């Protein structure tokens, strides 16, 4: 009842490991797939090796996580081994890429299409880096430019821009991306940025001061974004942001998501989150007499 076809990706259930969460290497991604994820997303790959920020980089603050990892990456040139190992992954693998210019986006895309990921997620939305991402995802025009350029490089591999809730009109950004050739839309990346201050230390806690907010706190924002995007595009949506249990996932599907991303919930519920969420979805569906998850995608719209 949970089988999902997302842009041609055959998934046993709609849960997808969110990018940047446990996605550093092939072996762990494969484990997440074994543990129940319908698809897994690799950590965003950038143009060149990058260390990321100093610690603290990831914190839990009671209502969610906040992170300023700073997009560490081995760079696409060091990605071959992981991609090769991922060929044996039980679930479809989505590659995620970022750059700080259109040229860098296409450079990374070109660098990895040879490995034939099931899909390429274009991270135009990370709030942790000053130029990388943020600018791209808030403007429909710029977002579309990136998507168009990457689409030209990617050929038949489906591409999916990942949007930021910071956009003033996320529906317009999504529509522009669809126009530019996006095969799916991913929303949302982390919210904010936000900041955690420690009173006793009289200092921001994250070394980078600001970081992207995720987890339970952002669920209402994520639902609203997906709801608005659903009314603006006809390509399928990978909805995520604060999804922690089966009921959250059902709500996200009703907002319009075909596939449902799970990131921070792995903190609250462990790597078992994917299986737990899938099971809870099934329980709810049985209670409500819903035969296939497809029936409820977009159900919250009039």
């Amino acid at each position, binding site marked *: 009842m949970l089988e999902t076809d997302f842009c041609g990706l055959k998934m046993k259930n709609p849960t997808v490991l969110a990018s940047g969460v446990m996605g*550093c290497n092939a072996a762990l991604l494969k484990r997440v797939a074994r543990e129940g994820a319908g698809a897994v997303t690799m950590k965003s790959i950038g143009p060149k090796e990058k260390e990321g920020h100093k610690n603290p980089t990831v914190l839990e603050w009671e209502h969610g996580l906040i992170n300023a990892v700073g997009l560490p990456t081995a760079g696409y040139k060091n990605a071959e081994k992981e991609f090769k190992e991922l060929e044996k992954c039980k679930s479809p693998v989505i590659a995620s890429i970022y750059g700080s210019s259109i040229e860098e986006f296409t450079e990374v895309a070109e660098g990895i299409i040879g490995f034939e990921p099931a899909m390429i997620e274009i991270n135009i939305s990370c709030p942790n880096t000053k130029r990388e991402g943020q600018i791209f995802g808030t403007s429909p025009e710029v977002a579309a430019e990136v998507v168009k350029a990457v689409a030209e490089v990617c050929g038949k591999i489906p591409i999916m821009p990942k949007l930021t809730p910071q956009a003033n009109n996320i529906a317009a950004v999504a529509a522009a991306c669809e126009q530019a050739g996006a095969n799916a839309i991913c929303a949302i990346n982390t919210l904010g940025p936000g900041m955690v201050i*420690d009173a006793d230390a009289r200092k921001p806690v994250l070394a980078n001061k600001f970081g992207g907010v995720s987890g339970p706190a952002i669920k209402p924002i994520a639902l609203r974004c997906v709801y608005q995007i659903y009314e603006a595009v006809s390509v399928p949506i990978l909805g995520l942001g604060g999804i922690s249990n089966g009921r959250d996932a059902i709500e996200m599907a009703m907002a319009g998501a075909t596939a449902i991303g799970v990131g921070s919930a792995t903190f609250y519920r462990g790597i078992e989150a994917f299986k737990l969420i899938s099971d809870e979805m099934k329980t709810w569906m049985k209670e409500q007499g819903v035969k296939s998850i497809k029936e409820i995608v977009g159900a919250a719209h009039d």
Partner: protein
Amino acid sequence: MSELPQIVKITKVQRETGEHHTLFFNFKAEAAPGQFLMVWIPGVDEKPISLSKISKEELAITVQCKGSWSKRVCGFESGTKIGVRGPYGNGFSTEGVKKAIIVAGGCGSAPLMPLVEKCLVEGIETKFILGAQNAKKLLFKKELIEKLGDNLYITTDDGSEGTKGFTTQTLEELLGKEKPDCVYSCGPEIMMKGVLDICQKKKIKSQLSLERYMRCGFGVCGQCVMDDLMVCKDGPVFSGKTLSESAEFGKLTRLKSGKEVSLKEFGDWRQC
């Protein structure tokens, strides 16, 4: 409750060797031997550090002066405030263990001290092999003599105290004479690889405490990965069985960027 760092005041600083300092502080937490804290110096950096002393009243960590972070820590006096969160990780298990050999290399003694305590409380017959480059770097020697007497075996690379040579040599000798239920070890990964090989050969169970670069400490960021295991959450203590099946243990680690490098290339940073 959130997992944010809590600011604690250092109540006591104890100089162990020229380069190892133990910091005591009050922090209410249920902790097990082998677990670690994320220790934050506000405005500087945050690092995973094992608990070297666990009691109801206080906890302690023992830090080796080495890089930019730890050198600062070693300058701290009592009264200095640090942020701590945790404890994280799984810790050592003593279930079913009646006889144990513990092998510590350099500052690997730190997480092993609360284990010794636990073994003594539980009446486990315990031998401890303590190794270092030279006599001056033997961490917790005095305490271990007090606690274990003849059951402490000292080795130094240069022979300046105890047996000249590596801890692994002494382990091999001991295992020629006896069969413990478990061998525990913490220290440079190369050393632990040696410990594991010996234990596997002799078919003796082992538990080894590993290190990888960490960010979150709680199993989300994936930075500390080794094969498909997150050292911060699935570890830092792994069974010899798990590690004997590992493609990376003793061979590979990852830089902050996530790039894989050989342990050799990475440098024997914990070779303390």
